[in-house]
């Protein structure tokens, strides 16, 4: 009898230790997801800040393309106002496509293309776009790891007890990019 009690106590202690370790691991994973999201936010903000300058430079050369410029401005306003993940995602995707059409138009203006400020802004925006996509990649990686761990056994027991909820992935809605993946494993 005494032996059984000791065994039970040992098992209980082990279970508690496991619980603590799992809980901490989950917390850590969740923090990493939060951190990754903050990274995306920083880059999105940077893109929003660049757009007024871009429009300012382009304005002087593109009197006949008001529509394209206005579309970019509108998309930017929408994007800055969005708060929820899903909403943000849509607004940012819209902004990306608006910017892409703007740069397609810029191609038609050689003077504007060779403008020093334009070149700088183009490089900055390209870099920011890349940063956004890398930040998104990192966020999605971390989120997938987190989501996987809260759904797999036995961690899911701890996760559901302490109310860890899965996070949404930040996905691309742009069809052109979806259809042409860089690699196919």
């Amino acid at each position, binding site marked *: 009898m005494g032996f059984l009690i000791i065994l039970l106590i040992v098992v209980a202690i082990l279970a508690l230790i496991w619980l603590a370790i799992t809980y901490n691991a989950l917390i850590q994973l969740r923090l990493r997801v939060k951190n*990754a999201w903050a990274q995306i936010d920083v880059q999105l903000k940077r893109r929003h800040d660049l757009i007024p300058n871009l429009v300012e430079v382009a304005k002087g050369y593109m009197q006949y393309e008001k529509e394209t410029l206005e579309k970019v401005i509108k998309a930017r306003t929408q994007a800055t106002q969005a708060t929820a993940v899903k909403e943000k995602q849509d607004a940012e995707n819209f902004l990306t496509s608006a910017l892409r059409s703007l740069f397609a138009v810029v191609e038609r203006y050689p003077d504007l293309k060779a403008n020093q400020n334009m070149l*700088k802004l183009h*490089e900055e925006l*390209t*870099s920011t776009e*890349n940063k956004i996509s*890398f*930040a998104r990649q990192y966020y999605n990686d971390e989120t997938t790891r987190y989501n996987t761990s809260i759904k797999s056994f036995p961690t899911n027991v701890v996760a559901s007890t302490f109310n860890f909820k899965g996070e949404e992935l930040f996905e691309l809605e742009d069809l052109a990019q979806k259809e042409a993946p860089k690699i*196919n494993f």
Partner: protein
Amino acid sequence: MPYSFIEVEKQKSWIIRAVFLFLIIFYFLVAEIIWLITKIFVLSELNAAKAPALFSLLEAAVVFFVAFIIAFVHWRFSTRDMIEKILNLLGAIDPDPKDSYHQVFKNVVEEVCIATGGIKIRCCVIPSSGLNAFAVSDFKGDAVVGVTEGLLAKLNRSQLEAVIGHEAGHVASGDSLSTTIICSLFGVYSVLLRGLSKTLGIISRGRRAGGAVLYLLIIYIVLSITQGVSFLLNMFISRQSEYRADAISVRLTRNPISLAEALYIISRGWRGLGEIPNSFSPIFIMSPDYSRLEESESVTSDLLSTHPPIKSRLAILLDMAHSDVKVLKEGIKPKYKVPIERGIVEIKEEPKREWLIYKDNSWQGPFQLGELFNLGLSPDSWISKVDEGFIKHASEDEILNAALRDKLAGKAIKVGDICPECNLPLGEILYEGTPVLRCYYCGGILVGQDAVSRIMVREDVTFPSSIAKAAEEVLKTYSMKMRLDRFRVAYELICPKCKGKMWRGLFSYGYPVEIDRCDRCRYIWFDKDELETLQYLFERRGQESTKD
């Protein structure tokens, strides 16, 4: 990321301990051998009966203690400011914020840092036309990734990103720390070894051999052994880590094709960097000196080279992308070039010519401010502004009056640098992505020493056929010119930067274009078309060498 920071920390301490242990053992063995030899010498002098035992534990302990101290001192001195020392040795410099290639490089590094989830990496550029990249890091967690100018010129953005991803992989996995430590610990030896072999050569020629030579010889042998061991140690860490860094790069950029392309381009080009000791090769993406060993796959070559053969690296990457070398070769497109007149970007626009001046009984102009002063503007000169249309004295105009006052006060007029040929202010432009000064009037270009090397390796623009003709002409007439000009030193122009004299001569014997060079600040003045001719010759030489 496959490595969390904790894992990296763990690996760090493991490597540090292993290397330190190796140092202690190494110094212990050396000290013990030297001690034993000394004893044998002494023993042969002494009476054999009184001689102490050849080996004793106490002595060994003392020797060990000494070895420990030496190892510690060596460690402390070698690992202090590791990064700065290596950067100095490689001649790496910070990127130029005005240079568009450097800006792209900086941005790409930042992008990759974000992909790793927030590792901080500083970037550096090696002003060399070779193709290579390296990563170093230290205990504090500082990391530097550097690339050569040649690499920046030859790779496109995604290829560069893949290379940076590879280097960031070294940093993230902690490999770069171990290679940096080993390089700074044993880089010293290779220098010592060189010096020692010279000394030995001198002594042996002098035929005054004795105990000293024996010691030197022993040290020489021991050093050679450590050289070998450190080399092996490096390879052990380095070879595997190259594959691993390739894998991390693919993980970060999701683009194995670009990495394969980059590796292919680097392997086909010249990777050399000049006077860099062999012991530094592990920090580079591909060994700076070409050796056949690295390209074969036998067991010995596997043991004896720091980098895995390019073939197997490519094979792994291409396998990931379901592609093969043939497709890869076809996929590498030459860089997009524009005609030269469209490749120039003006940073500062030319100042307006808005002044007319009455001189020599006629109205002349319009001129810029700087030009007016060259024409001898005085307060009572009659001038007129083009868009205003009425005539006044120079002293009546606010801007001119202020400028004249400045001149009276002995201050230089702020018109910037002046063209040495036509005395007009030079404008700043981006030529092949690098900032240079150009005269609007005569088309001459003033270039700093380091910018010349950048312009020569970059190939953004195409040249009109007149440049090709001029270049052929230069090559044809150059041997004759050499004979005529060898002893003639002509100072004709004044350097716009330092106001020193500029010396007219050939750019180099390999590229015999005539240029004006300032002795003091090393700026070079190219008359119209001279820079283009030089570039044309350089590009042609490059094409010829890759054909072979």
